[in-house]
């Protein structure tokens, strides 16, 4: 290895040129337009990429019925055991069972997406929604109605803009 030694000149020993150089570096950052770095969250929201795994939804078919057939494949695939399904005989002709209770504990869920892969009916799906919160633990155990409602919310795009960017969006009102 070749060693390069640098001999300090008397200018270097004054330290003042180095100090000024450092100050200029920070000055450049200070006056540079620095958008696209910090996202002003409630006003601007980040649009996730299409492979993003966010909150779940339960898909509906063309007639607006729940797609799920209560096979419980998702529940058994779930490594966190956060899905609870209570099946019942279906009132419709095209399937035998449907869930009368379908609960996902969003606090236990690890958002691995195994449920989505296990589902034979493409009923359960992970959406791009990442900003959900609740005031209690109970509130974050999402039931069937909430999950179907998520379908309505996310069937069209939930966040605006190109994936990987963020754009202005109005605060969505609480229901």
């Amino acid at each position, binding site marked *: 290895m070749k060693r390069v030694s640098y001999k300090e000149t008397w200018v270097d020993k004054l330290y*003042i040129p180095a*100090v000024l150089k*450092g*100050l200029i*570096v*920070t*000055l450049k*950052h*200070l006056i*540079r337009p*620095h958008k696209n*770095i*910090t996202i*002003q969250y409630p006003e601007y929201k980040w649009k996730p990429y299409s492979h993003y795994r966010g909150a779940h939804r339960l898909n509906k078919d063309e007639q607006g019925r729940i797609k799920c057939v209560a096979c419980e494949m998702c529940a058994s695939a779930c490594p966190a055991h956060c899905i609870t399904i209570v099946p019942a005989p279906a009132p419709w002709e095209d399937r035998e069972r449907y869930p009368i209770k379908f609960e996902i504990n969003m606090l236990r869920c690890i958002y691995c997406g195994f449920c989505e892969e296990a589902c034979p009916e493409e009923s359960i799906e992970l959406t791009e929604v990442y900003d959900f919160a609740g005031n209690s633990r109970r509130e974050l155990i999402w039931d069937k109605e909430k999950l179907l409602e998520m379908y309505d919310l996310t069937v069209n795009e939930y966040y605006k803009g190109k994936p990987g960017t963020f754009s202005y969006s109005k605060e969505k009102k609480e229901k």
Partner: protein
Amino acid sequence: MVDLIIELVIIILKIGIVIGAVMMGVAYMTLAERRLSGFIQDRLGPNRAGPQGLLQPFADGIKLFFKEDFIPDSAEKLLFFIAPGMIFVPALCVIAVIPFGDSLNIFGREIQLRIADVNIGILYIFAIASLGVYGIVLGGWSANNKYTLFGSLRSVAQMISYELALGLSVMGVLMITGSLRLTEVVEVQRSYFFGFIPHWNIFLQPVAFIIFITAAFAETNRLPFDLVEAEQELVGGYHTEYNSMKWGLYFLSEYANVITASAVITTLFFGGWHLPWIEKIPMPQILLELLQIGSFVLKTAFFSIFFIWVRWTFPRFKYNQLMSLGWKVFLPIAILNVLVTGLFYAIFS
């Protein structure tokens, strides 16, 4: 009798306005520190409270007032209680001798724009500023915590070492002025070299200026010399055990010290309230006075922001580096500066 009362009212008003201005400056320096540091690091800084975060200082103040005032069980209660006051009072007292303008003529009454015009001006500043160290030392000692004790021990050695460089660097300026009175220091700087370069001491004493501003950084415990606080190694230094408004007082005095140091630098090296070139344009007397006050405030604000700017540029010194810089570099250079200035004056006058 009436005259006396009016004089008294004017003095009280002046004190109120100056202290109010310093406190507002302190409040907005906390905001400026946070926002500018954000910009330097390509962030945005606090911008939620009010437009562009302009109400943030008040939100912080209200928060500090309503926090629980907790005193550690093993603390030396009395000293722990009075130590924040011992740093806050000197921090505010120093500003008293700094002239922030010439004189205003209102209703036929000449109002000198300084609180006190004492003939030991600069010595008064050093004397009162040197008392500020007790707030740090006693606060750190009385909290009975090893980190706070380390912080106070460091502050003692640091303050004493840099006070020497600070004092000796000013000697050059004082030799030029021939007086310790700050109004005269400003008065001397009001002429021009060659008719257009302002006769500011920075052009005559650049070495003294560099030593003074660096020592001022050390005296106000600001980065790169903030070994007294040193978050990474001392958890926050002398005020580790402090909270609520007692901590707030330490915080306020740090910024008050920065503003005072900026005002002193402005007065000693940058002509104080002297407004070059523009003062030659004919204009009403009162407008000129106000512009001169404005120029003083602007210069002080620039140096206050320079303090912030430096803080977010340089890393902290090691303690041995700090000490050898103070004793082996700045002190000899300051003495040399005094000698050279003296020789220069002996030869050329």
